[in-house]
């Protein structure tokens, strides 16, 4: 479980995250939704440590991530997988080498064991016969799948996805959503998906955090969403505008 406690982030005098308190649960797909510029990406980047909060805490199983010693923080990072909006695949490496990279860095596996794991991860994301291709030779949807395979190559506890459906057609978006759902359930990991796609919410969202103008506007389960729309005009406007 990940908890955010009184999280604030300023960029100079701009208050981009305002006193955020939220919980993200294990074994479920937690969705951070909201309009562009609402603070979703900054929130996710602050949670994974790419941004430092101005004040407040990010607790991973009660460990204050940003106040951990450097080595402990690095060790915790090895339990985190992330799918970036632009995939962030290493462009000089092949698909196979991209997925192998975390194993090469942080496992004691032999070459054969690493290849076995790479092929397993690639088969989990339904990617076959692309091992020797470089990222520039594959489609956007395939890149996302390689990104997911790389994120789950090590036995992670937390998976963060920044706009996993951006730039993808609706059909491929559903494939990626289903993959994320299946991986979350199979490995029992805490998945945090930053999205503005309400189809994703309807399909795989279990716990939802709605961000609006840098604030956590609403938090609850998918079942509670319809009810919350009645009393929350901003949430209602966002949901209706998404369809």
């Amino acid at each position, binding site marked *: 479980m990940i908890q955010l406690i009184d999280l604030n982030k300023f960029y100079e005098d701009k208050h981009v995250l305002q006193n955020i308190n939220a919980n993200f649960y294990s074994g479920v797909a937690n969705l951070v939704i909201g309009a562009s510029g609402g603070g979703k990406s900054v929130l996710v980047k602050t949670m*994974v*440590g*790419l941004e430092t909060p101005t004040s407040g805490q990010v607790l991973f199983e009660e460990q204050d991530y940003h106040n951990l010693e450097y080595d402990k*923080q*690095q*060790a*915790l*990072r*090895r339990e*985190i*997988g*992330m799918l*970036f*909006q*632009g995939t*962030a*695949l*290493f*462009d000089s490496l092949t698909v196979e080498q991209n997925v192998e990279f*975390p194993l*090469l*860095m*942080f496992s004691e596996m032999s070459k054969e064991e690493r290849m076995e794991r790479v092929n397993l991860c690639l088969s989990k994301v339904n990617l076959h016969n692309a091992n020797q291709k470089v990222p520039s030779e594959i489609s956007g949807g395939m890149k996302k799948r390689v990104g997911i395979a790389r994120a789950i190559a090590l036995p992670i506890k937390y998976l*963060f996805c920044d706009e996993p459906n951006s730039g993808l057609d609706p059909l491929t978006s559903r494939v990626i959503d289903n993959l994320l759902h299946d991986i979350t359930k199979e490995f029992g990991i805490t998945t945090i998906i930053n999205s503005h796609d309400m189809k994703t919410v309807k399909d795989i969202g279990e716990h939802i955090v709605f961000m609006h103008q840098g604030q956590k506007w609403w938090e609850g389960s998918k079942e509670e969403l319809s009810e919350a729309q009645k009393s929350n005009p901003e949430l209602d406007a966002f949901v209706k505008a998404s369809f």
Partner: protein
Amino acid sequence: MNLFSEIGRYIIFMKYVFKRPERGRVFWSMLTREMNLMGIESLVVVILIALITGAVTTVQTASQLASDSGILPPSLFPMEIVGSVVGSSSILEIAPTITCLVLAGKIGANIASEIGNMRVSEQIDAYEVMGINSIGFVSLPKILAGVIMIPCLILVSVFLLMVGGLIAAKLTGILTLDQYVTGIRSSFVPHYVNVLMVKGYIFSFIITSMSAFQGYYTKGGALEVGEAGTKAVTRICVAILAFDLIIAKLLL
């Protein structure tokens, strides 16, 4: 103030560069790749620059001595002086400084744009999220490879500068080979080689570390990646010339 904050950021950057690499075998493979890229692939340009500069220095020095300056008649200057000037200036200045200014354009711009591109395409963020010290991971192999290979290129350059002068002397007939070689041998001071190597190590560190720093903190997109390369080369050239003066003052 801006300059001081840049220097401060550079010092903090260097602190992370020299943290122990996460995985030795990955580091070694990256180091050898970078050594090949910097050393072997820069060899042709270094050879050409050294041969041409050596020849030009010889021809120009000889022509200046041969022209009537009004101080002494040209016949009173021994032509061995040409070899002496080419030899000393090659070791002290042309080989380390000119070679490194050229390599700043080739290696420095390359490092800054490569790391800058990794930054804007979130590859550096990916290293960070994995728990890799991204500064050290992307910079240390390049800096170490530069510090190993650039001084070697400078040594090659010294030799070829003198060969270039020799070829020019032979082809133009402005002085005999004996005069040229005698001039070089008579002016040789072993301490100059120490100065050469000190300059080589310091300049190679400047080229690789400043370009890595510039690339690492790139923000924006493709345009800013290009700007990072240009900015890196400009700053490296200024730093090389400033340190050139400092080293000359301290060691000579």
